[in-house]
């Protein structure tokens, strides 16, 4: 953080004072931060808050993504992943294929991240069986699976409540929800981009139920398409409000829109400055969500590293295989190794800390396994 005269010159001294006193920022504060044209000023404010929360640590997880199917009854305009059954790029992994992919990973795989489209036919029992088998195969791994959108879809398909779906999946091994499908909560945006999907209220309601059942979640925001900065801030405010009630959010994940192969392909990609501003403002607005993720798959590895100095404290993980961002043109690698991630974090002047899904530090024994 710089001398107060620097922030005064930029018209941000009151915000800097609020942050120094750990006071909550208003929507107007958020708008002024977005409007700030000095990236060093914004970075220094966000980095100070991030350092107060997490010191010099930057977290990562040894994880494996599984996208079980891209067959989806929704047709969100920003999505390049979703396909209808029978379309050339539609796919559906069998249970065997999923288990083989997981079995190919090292024994101490910390997290298994499973998400897919809203499949029209697969019954909830299919997913319960799948989670049970995954749990039997890797009992120590944490299963983080299904966006709030999938959970609501299962409830509708089965004609049961969201709580029942969550309770059944939890009994089968579900430990956490990854937070996807939040997009931007704004009704205006959802009506134009994803009218088939549950609305913002519906998303927050599923997540509230999950938190009540002791299932913690992350929360995403898909930005950089047709939303306004005000709508981004309203999205953050809605999460902040729910978090005040439940405390169940672990990590916030801003996701830059990827413009290839979807109905919004006429839009340009997000710029680095917009990405870093969004990360920084998230850190500063979301005073009650402990972690902010720099998701390298969508940000690019290079920019995600700098994001660790603009308010993010988490680099996500090894990932191994990812389809949602890559089908939309993300040109990052499919996965990173533990050594690559640690080097990237160290080169940013931070200390890599391997974590689990709940950000508990992993402690390795001498045999390379995890205690």
């Amino acid at each position, binding site marked *: 953080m*710089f001398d107060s005269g*620097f922030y005064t010159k930029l018209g941000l001294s009151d915000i800097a004072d609020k942050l120094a006193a750990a006071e909550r920022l208003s929507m107007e504060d958020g708008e002024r931060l977005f409007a700030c*044209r*000095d*990236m*060093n*000023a914004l*970075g*220094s404010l966000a*980095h100070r808050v991030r350092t107060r929360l997490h010191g010099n640590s930057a977290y990562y997880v040894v994880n494996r993504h599984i996208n079980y199917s891209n067959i989806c009854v929704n047709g969100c305009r920003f999505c390049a992943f979703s396909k209808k059954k029978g379309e050339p790029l539609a796919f559906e992994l069998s249970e065997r294929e999923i288990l083989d992919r997981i079995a190919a990973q090292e024994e101490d795989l910390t997290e298994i991240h499973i998400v897919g489209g809203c499949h029209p036919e697969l019954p909830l029992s299919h997913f319960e069986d799948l989670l049970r088998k995954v749990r039997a195969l890797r009992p120590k791994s944490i299963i983080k699976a299904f966006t709030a959108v999938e959970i609501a879809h299962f409830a509708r398909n089965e004609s049961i409540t969201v709580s029942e779906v969550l309770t059944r999946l939890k009994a089968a091994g579900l430990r956490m929800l990854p937070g996807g499908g939040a997009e931007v909560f704004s009704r205006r945006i959802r009506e134009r981009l994803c009218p088939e999907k549950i609305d913002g209220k519906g998303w927050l309601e599923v997540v509230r139920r999950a938190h009540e059942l002791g299932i913690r979640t992350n929360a995403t925001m898909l930005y950089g398409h047709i939303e306004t900065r005000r709508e981004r801030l309203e999205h953050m405010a809605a999460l902040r409000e729910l978090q005040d009630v439940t405390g169940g959010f672990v990590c916030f994940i801003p996701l830059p829109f990827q413009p290839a192969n979807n109905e919004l392909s006429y839009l*340009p990609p997000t*710029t*680095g*400055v*917009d*990405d*870093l501003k969004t990360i920084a403002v998230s850190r500063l607005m979301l005073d009650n969500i402990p972690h902010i993720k720099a998701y390298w798959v969508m*940000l*690019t590895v*290079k*920019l995600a*590293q*700098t994001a660790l*100095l603009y308010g993010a404290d988490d680099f996500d993980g090894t990932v191994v295989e990812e389809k949602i961002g890559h089908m939309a043109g993300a040109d990052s690698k499919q996965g990173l190794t533990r050594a*690559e991630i640690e*080097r*990237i974090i160290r*080169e*940013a*002047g931070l200390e890599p800390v391997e974590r689990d899904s709940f950000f508990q530090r992993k402690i390795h024994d001498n045999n390379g396994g995890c205690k």
Partner: protein
Amino acid sequence: MSENGRLSFDDAWELYQGADFHGLGRMAHTARLEKHPDPVVSYVVDRNINYSNVCVCGCRFCAFYRPPGHPECYVLGRDELAAKIEETLELGGTQILMQGGHHPDLPLSFYEEMLRFIKARYPIHIHAFSPPEIAHFARLERTSIGDVIARLGAAGLDSIPGGGAEILVDSVRERVSPRKCSVREWLAVMEEAHGQGLRTTATMMFGHEEDPRHRLEHLFALRDLQDRTGGFTAFIPWAFQPKNTAIEREPETAVSYLRLLAVSRLVLDNFDNIQASWVTMGPKVAQLALFFGANDFGSTMIEENVVAAAGVCFRLTVEEIHRIIESAGFRARRRTMDYNWVE
């Protein structure tokens, strides 16, 4: 700061190693705004033309060259050259950046004729032949560097690109590019060119086998020469891309690049311009570089072969360059090689 208001080597080292990231960025951005108070970021529309990939140097960091006799060797013919220049002019280009390998057989007259051929036909600025090429021509021709520059200048050469500087420390050059010109020769070509009235740029390729201190030695060697001649227009640092080369290591990260860029802006107080390298760092990090000392976005690179050979291939249109510069809060303006505005 030392007494004359300039950074000493030790000051620079302390900043490079110790300054916090945003503090370093702020210092560099302040220095940039002192030199260029208007929030303008410049760029040039040009094309890289690599007239030949035949090279006897065999630098270990290079993925572009082919040794003589290799089936993929080429030397561009006149028709290809003309077609590339015509396309550049059609796209509104104002200059070509022409470089090639150290061809073992082509005489200096070949290059003189190439320049005359272009100048007789096209109104285009020729920014060509990095110092190692010029030193190579002098050796082959058994003449002086001054004579080579004078002959090329008479044939139409307008300015000299600062390539082949790599790291201007001989112990590093002996390891990574043992057959390329020495530090003394590289600087001598630039000093001679400046003396003959040709402007030049200066580059640095870092992140291979040098120590961090060597990067600063490089900057101070450039600053000393610029004090004498004032002939450098811009400094362009870029990160080594290891794919398809004989040096095995991970590429430099964005944070490491931005720190070096910021220190460059602070050390090179006698250079007017510092370029961001979107070609090696990608558009996102290059945009952030505009807050870490860079005031120039480099070139549209209608064609780029050398970095692409090392597996890194970003592409940007003029419209996209404008959008990136403007969304960072600056105005985009097109310039010539010597930093005059085009419109």
